[in-house]
């Protein structure tokens, strides 16, 4: 719970510093959505597509779906109070689906579709959100060899600060 709160706050800060992204976003999709009856949640199809996009950006199949669901939970909750963001996601998913449904494509075609939208703000937003959430996830940390905070163990001063033995060989 505490961790989740920290993560949300971090995402909030990132959104704040992503002002250029916001400008680009409104310039490209300057549609004022959010009439009283505009849906405030992402659709199940959008959510599934975003999860797949997150996975393709940094695929660690051995970790299962949970880390990618966590990223999209964050995006989804940010989108609830941000009509521009919902609009951008809607347009981004629609572009991925253009002509055929993205989720049904094979992996290499999906990667190609992502490459085609790489220059746009939807892709930049998803890349940033994925990177910042995935690599702030303790499950991923363990997987890639990051040990996280050592405060509870008294720091690294007596726990491997200077323990490598391969430098004198070779």
């Amino acid at each position: 719970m505490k961790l989740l709160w920290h993560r949300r706050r971090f995402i909030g800060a990132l959104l704040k510093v992503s002002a250029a992204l916001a400008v680009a976003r409104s310039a490209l999709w300057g549609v004022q959505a959010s009439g009283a009856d505009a849906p405030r949640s992402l659709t199940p199809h959008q959510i599934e597509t975003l999860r797949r996009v997150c996975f393709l950006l940094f695929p660690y199949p051995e970790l299962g779906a949970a880390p990618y669901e966590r990223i999209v939970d964050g995006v989804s909750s940010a989108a609830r109070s941000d009509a521009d963001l919902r609009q951008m996601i809607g347009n981004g998913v629609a572009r991925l689906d253009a002509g055929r449904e993205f989720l049904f494509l094979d992996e290499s075609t999906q990667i190609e579709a992502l490459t085609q939208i790489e220059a746009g703000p939807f892709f930049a937003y998803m890349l940033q959100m994925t990177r910042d959430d995935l690599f702030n996830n303790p499950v991923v940390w363990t997987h890639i060899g990051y040990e996280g905070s050592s405060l509870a163990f008294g720091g690294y001063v007596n726990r491997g600060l200077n323990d490598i033995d391969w430098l004198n060989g070779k």
Partner: protein
Amino acid sequence: MATSFDKDDDHVVVVVGSGAGGATVSRELAMAGIDVVCIEAGSPVEKIVTDAAAMFPLLTWLDRRIGSGDLPAAFPVWSGKGVGGTTLHWTAHAPRMEAEHFEPSRYFGALDDCTILDWPVPFEEMTRYYAAAERSMGVSGTHGWPKLPESNHYRVLKAGAERIGLKHAERSNMAINSVAQGGRPACIQLGFCSSGCAVNAKWTAANTPIAQALQTDHFEIRDRSFVLHIEHDGKGQATSVVYVDPNGALQRQKARVVCLAANAIDTPRILLNSESSAFPNGLANKSGHVGRHYIKHVFAIVTAILPHPVNFHRGTQLLGGVNDFVYHDSSRGFAGGFKFEQVSFDPAGLAVLSRPGAWGKGYAAQLKKYDHYAALLVMGEDPPQQSNSVTLHPAEKDRYGMPVPVVHYVDHENSRRMRDFAVQTARDLYESLGSEGVFLSSPPPATHNMGTCRMASNIDNGVCDHWGRSYDVANLFLSDGSQFPSSGNANPTLTIVALAMRQAGYIRERMLSRNL
């Protein structure tokens, strides 16, 4: 002791900003019995946790700034906001500037389009203040305090340096306790230095000079207070500082002396926003130099994947470097010098930096070798250019109605040559260790901001004299990195603290003799 001063009390010194410069001037004056009101835009940081994502929004200046030229547009500068300023975020590398870097005209003299200026402060005098600054900060490696212990990451850097024939891989002087002193414990090698030190082994302006000033009866800090402009009287003396208090109300604090230490971005911003009929181009800006000559160090981050684990997250983020290129050597094909400094990143930082914009299977596999990474940063001397600048956006205002700053910076050709040489050397260094890949990051946001209100021996060349005193406004001082006429290639904080101690002595003496 909780001291407070009346806003109409015009005998106080008002210090704007509580980072390295502002906190040091405040402490020096308050301990000499001079009443000080320090106005800080951020909040006190009550608790530091070993969680970079959680600390980022608590420590970082997130108010809007616009980057232009080579700087990231949305986040051009990574500086601190909070009691203690950017020292909460700094990695605590505390080198002195070398003697030759006080006279950059000797090696930069012939560069085109540059506004090279030598320091008006005698180097011999600086060495005294450097020693005093190191003592006040408890810098390990000075005054008999041992250096911090070697780490894996440092040993990797040193081994690579030696393999390519470099001689000066050295652990640095760090403002991190190697032994308990100053009421703070010894470092336990947490590795979260730039997110704030959870055990306070790292010196910050908050845990030392601000804490010391608060123990006198002569110091009040007003946090969450955002300075908009400075007012002056008919004689051109600064009279008061206008700020927005935590409730959003406009306040005016009268002042006998004003010291500006709001970082080299917001210091000129405040002056430029203080225009009047007497100072149509901004306060203290008759010379036109306010906001000009912005320098930030020639910077690059190189990451490498080594054949065996390094675990570079274990221990202080910065511990040592390679100092073979610190001095100018015309045979290298560029003017000036640079340092290599080892630096580590948490996974989120590494993912952004190692290969900017990269994604997909290959990059995921690469990042999975997090524990095999090593990294260094290149920090070189940056020749000042008139056009690199901090200006006010003509239309866009922040939530207080203050114009948003535009930070413009373009690399000089000399800097590109220096960076290319440095990056190639870093590549050789890591490849000598059998690296599987060496990567150059895109330009990160600037953290070392200098030069925008520079000191000069001549009124036509700068904003202030060698004490940091404005040429135009006799009771206005520049107390942060904005007064640097050149960048050298040392991290600036120690020099900011040394200059602030020197300046405070001058202010004290002038006030006692009723000349201020």
